[in-house]
């Protein structure tokens, strides 16, 4: 029990949380404005198509209107931009969380639920619990470690639970079915068409994917070096999926960054920026002299 507690609360640099927050909130802006806009268009759909989810019934959420979707869209953007400043992390962070979740709800309550966006709720809900975190604050904190661990757990759980869903809905025979063929037929890119000509490729890929998903939690038992290799492997998998059927689980990809030493990347960027500025100023001085 104490070992589990120590693992859940392993102190991590506050700067890592600060960088992840920046990425998460920047993603919210991009997502709301460009990546996932079906909720916005539901403002113009007739309420006859509205199909409340459990959450909507419990909270008495109404069908979408143009006013509601505009408020949620621009409210999310404004709150996320404000949250990127790092000020009032709890108030602004949880405002973004509520706005984004509601906006997704509007998107999903018209008959189609996307199955890749729920883990992001964990990141939005728990990142604010860390409180103030500065980009250059290398101190290690248990609160930061907890938030990062919870995000890692949620991200990895999606792999394992999607293997579980394949067993539950597709049956053990899923690995031998033509599900990938169906995906490529319905939305395959030119890059993927040759896969249909060589059907064993997609069949084998189903076995590999299923095995990788089922064993995903092993990532927590690996050494740091191998953990990063596995994360890189998942990024390669998601890039291949995008190339083949233009589906990417964008919010999940942001969550997977919680495994990486983000604060080092940020420090490197800042170092480059700091080195460049004096030289640029120096160049200008030289130009003036010339």
């Amino acid at each position, binding site marked *: 029990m104490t070992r589990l507690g120590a693992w*859940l609360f392993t*102190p991590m640099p506050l700067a890592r949380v600060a960088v992840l927050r920046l990425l998460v909130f920047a993603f919210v802006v991009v997502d709301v404005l460009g990546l996932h806009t079906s909720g916005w268009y539901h403002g113009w759909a007739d309420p006859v*198509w509205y199909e409340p989810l459990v959450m909507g019934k419990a909270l008495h959420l109404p069908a979408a209107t143009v006013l509601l979707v505009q408020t949620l869209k621009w409210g999310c953007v404004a709150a996320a931009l404000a949250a990127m400043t790092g000020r009032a992390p709890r108030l602004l962070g949880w405002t973004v969380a509520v706005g984004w979740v509601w906006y997704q709800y509007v998107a999903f309550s018209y008959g189609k*639920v996307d199955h890749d966006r729920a883990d992001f709720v964990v990141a939005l809900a728990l990142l604010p619990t860390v409180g103030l975190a500065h980009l250059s604050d290398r101190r290690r904190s248990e609160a930061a470690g907890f938030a990062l661990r919870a995000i890692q757990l949620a991200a990895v759980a999606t792999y394992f639970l999607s293997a579980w869903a394949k067993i539950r809905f597709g049956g053990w025979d899923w690995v031998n079915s033509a599900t990938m063929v169906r995906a490529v037929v*319905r939305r395959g890119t030119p890059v993927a068409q040759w896969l249909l000509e060589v059907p064993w490729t997609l069949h084998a890929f189903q076995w590999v994917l299923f095995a990788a998903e089922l064993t995903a939690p092993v990532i927590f038992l690996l050494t740091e070096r191998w953990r990063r290799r596995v994360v890189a492997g998942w990024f390669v998998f998601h890039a291949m999926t995008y190339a083949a059927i233009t589906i990417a689980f964008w919010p999940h990809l942001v969550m997977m960054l919680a495994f990486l030493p983000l604060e080092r990347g940020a420090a490197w960027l800042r170092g480059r920026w700091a080195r460049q500025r004096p030289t640029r100023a120096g160049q200008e001085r030289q130009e003036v002299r010339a």
Partner: protein
Amino acid sequence: MRLGAAAKSWRAVVVLGLTVMFCAGSLVGDDHWWPFSPWRMFSTSQAATGSVISTGIEVQTANAPGTWVPAPLTPENTGLNRAEIEGRIPQITADPQRLGTLARSHAELRPGAPEWTALRVVRRQIVVVDRKPTGEVRTSVLAQWEAR
């Protein structure tokens, strides 16, 4: 920087609660449980031999009455996407007048485009034998609406 016992306890309870909800959703839940719904992307089994169904809409416009042309079934165009229509086929065949709301949404979203005067839902069945599309496509009309 350490956390006190109370701060740790409620965080542990939150993680436990989330774990229980996500697992319960995956065990017995359905899409309506979102965000705790099962992670079922590409989870259904598709028979190696059978047909892949793809649903779309065709419309007649005020400019060319009597001619059916395929129209993109996208949120930008109708407020709804293909999957959302595919999931409501029983309701649509029971009450084809519902399709009129798509023409109305289209008029609001695309005020510059020619008005839709008729709309029908078309199902294309792409035949697959041994994991390979044969090239055969069967088309059928599921429901139709006309402006009066």
